């Protein structure tokens, strides 16, 4: 009961000494908010990456050209389909292309191969001569469904000093919904034949995705290796590991840089948490003169700091939630989404459970407890004789 009483007294003090409370909370929130926003975005992007990987093929096959992924003949898809355990072989043409001065991703797939995470505002899958474009791109190019877009137009030759231009016009049959994820924002989706002709790589695809029966990855990979030693084989597990490592590394680098901010927060908390306490020497002297033990005063001030931490943590979380969901994470998104720009044109993915939630409380407690050790102690050891002065 005694500790409960001291807890309530601490709560009363947090309310009574508003200035000190507000200063400590603002200091904590100022440090936590950018960190939590970045972590939430990182988790959001990681989640969307996982969705893409899980929707993708089990094995990706390309040619090995100078140690890099090389194009692969489209007809190999039919051959690979015959390998035991393979249920589907899907060639893809994927590359980057400038459209209207903006770098876009061009994806050519077979007709029956639309990933479920892509959904439309209105329109349908692209048939021959048709394309579906991302929302970011549509806004950039000011395009609506039904309009035309030329892709890959270029001067092929000069005949009598006159340029001979190949013009490739495509009909916009649909625009992706914003909820289709960040990958679809600058995407141009078309049939594989059109894509191949845009890149002028007839009969080739960038990779062939194989869908295999559970447990067959190893056997199919061995079969492919035997079929052609120049095949480059990457399984879904490998891709997933690369993604996890990549994001973990990015998060780690960000956190390593941010540790400096955390390290500087500790002296800041020392100053701010001591901010109001010096004015309370008389009050604490009175408490001790009326019978409070130093331990109890220590406990009360410690509880006050813990309460300020437990108020700051959710406040920082709510602030970063608003910053991302309402304002679409300006200035912070580019940290984790290259090319997103200060004000991203697409809804920035974010995830607030469980990691950012755990981190906000963990760091709030860690910084407050460590930063306020000295100030709490200074306040608690005030002599009771102080009350007689």
């Amino acid at each position, binding site marked *: 009961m*005694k500790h409960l009483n001291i807890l309530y007294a601490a709560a*009363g003090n947090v309310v009574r000494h508003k200035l000190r409370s507000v200063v400590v909370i603002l200091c904590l929130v100022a440090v936590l908010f950018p960190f939590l926003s970045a972590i939430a975005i990182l988790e959001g992007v990681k989640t969307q990456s996982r969705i893409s990987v899980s929707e993708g093929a089990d094995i990706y096959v390309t040619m090995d050209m100078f140690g890099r992924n090389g194009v692969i003949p489209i007809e190999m898809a039919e051959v690979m389909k015959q390998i035991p355990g393979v249920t589907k072989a899907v060639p893809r043409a994927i590359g980057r292309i400038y459209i209207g001065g903006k770098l876009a991703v061009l994806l050519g797939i077979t007709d029956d191969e639309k990933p479920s995470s892509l959904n439309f505002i209105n329109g349908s899958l692209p048939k021959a001569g048709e394309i579906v474009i991302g929302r970011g791109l549509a806004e950039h190019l000011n395009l609506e469904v039904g309009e035309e877009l030329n892709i890959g137009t270029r001067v092929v030759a000069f005949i009598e000093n006159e340029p001979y231009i190949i013009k490739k016009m495509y009909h916009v049959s649909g625009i992706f919904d914003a909820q289709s994820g960040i990958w679809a924002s600058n995407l141009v989706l078309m049939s594989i034949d059109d894509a191949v002709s845009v890149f002028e790589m007839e009969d080739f695809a960038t990779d062939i995705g194989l869908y295999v029966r559970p447990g067959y990855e190893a056997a199919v990979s061995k079969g492919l290796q035997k079929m052609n030693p120049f095949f480059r084989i990457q399984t879904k597990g490998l891709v997933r590991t690369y993604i996890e490592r990549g994001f973990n590394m990015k998060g780690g680098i960000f956190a390593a840089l941010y540790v400096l901010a955390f390290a500087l927060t500790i002296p800041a908390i020392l100053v701010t948490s001591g901010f109001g306490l010096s004015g309370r020497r008389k009050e604490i002297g*009175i408490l001790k003169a*009326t019978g*409070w*033990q*130093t331990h*109890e005063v220590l406990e009360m001030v410690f509880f006050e700091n813990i309460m300020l931490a437990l108020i700051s943590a959710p406040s920082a979380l709510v602030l970063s939630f608003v910053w991302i969901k309402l304002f679409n994470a300006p200035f912070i998104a580019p940290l984790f989404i290259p090319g997103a720009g200060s004000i991203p044109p697409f809804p920035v993915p974010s995830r607030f459970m469980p990691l950012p939630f755990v981190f906000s409380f963990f760091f709030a407690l860690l910084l407050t407890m460590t930063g306020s050790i000295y100030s709490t102690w200074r306040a608690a050891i005030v002599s009771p004789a102080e009350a*007689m002065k």
Partner: protein
Amino acid sequence: MTNIRVRSQESGVRRDELIRCEGVWKIYNEGRPHEVQALADVSLEIKKGSFTILNGPSGSGKTTLLALLGTMDRPSRGGIFMKGKDITGFSDTALSTLRRDSIGFVFQNFNLIPRLSAWENVSTPLIPAGVSEKGRRDRAMVLLEKLGLADRASHAPEELSGGEQQRVAIARALINNPEIIILDEPTSNIDAEATDILIDILKNLKSDSKTLLVSTHDQVLRPHADTVFELKRGRLAGITHD
């Protein structure tokens, strides 16, 4: 320099003795430059139920002696005995507990905590004792009623007069039902009317067999005291018994 060692055995306790100090010195910054001698070789005894006054001009060491007898500070030399037990070797925590259970303080400038209501101020000593909020409020209201402040219970100190603040401070001093009440210059910050009320309160407390220790240089309380100790430049200059 005597070694502050534990001497917790009773030494020749007389039944009516409450506090006794023997050969007490108080030297600030002892062993460091600028030593200040506040008290020198003071020995006195305060009986249970007595009304004792510490008299002397400013700087005579009244407040220092009050702090020592009230366990708020430690003597540099000599011993202080509470009911025969030597408390000089007590730890800071033990002294606080002793203060909470047996000693009530009324400070010169009342020392109420701002923005806390009167009953909350009165009941702050009960918080670490583990008494529930309802229990604290009930006990505070009983005392405030006795001191004629029931209708001012929810007012903050800033809204009370000097006399009222002093009575709230007295109620706080009484909340743990201590054996001794120590008042530091109680008449210096109140008007004549409040002084009369204070005298009545002190009489009632004495009749409730409380032990009163008052530091004052005001002669108005002198007629009511049993014993008056005269302090001069940190030394006991004289004792007069009623």
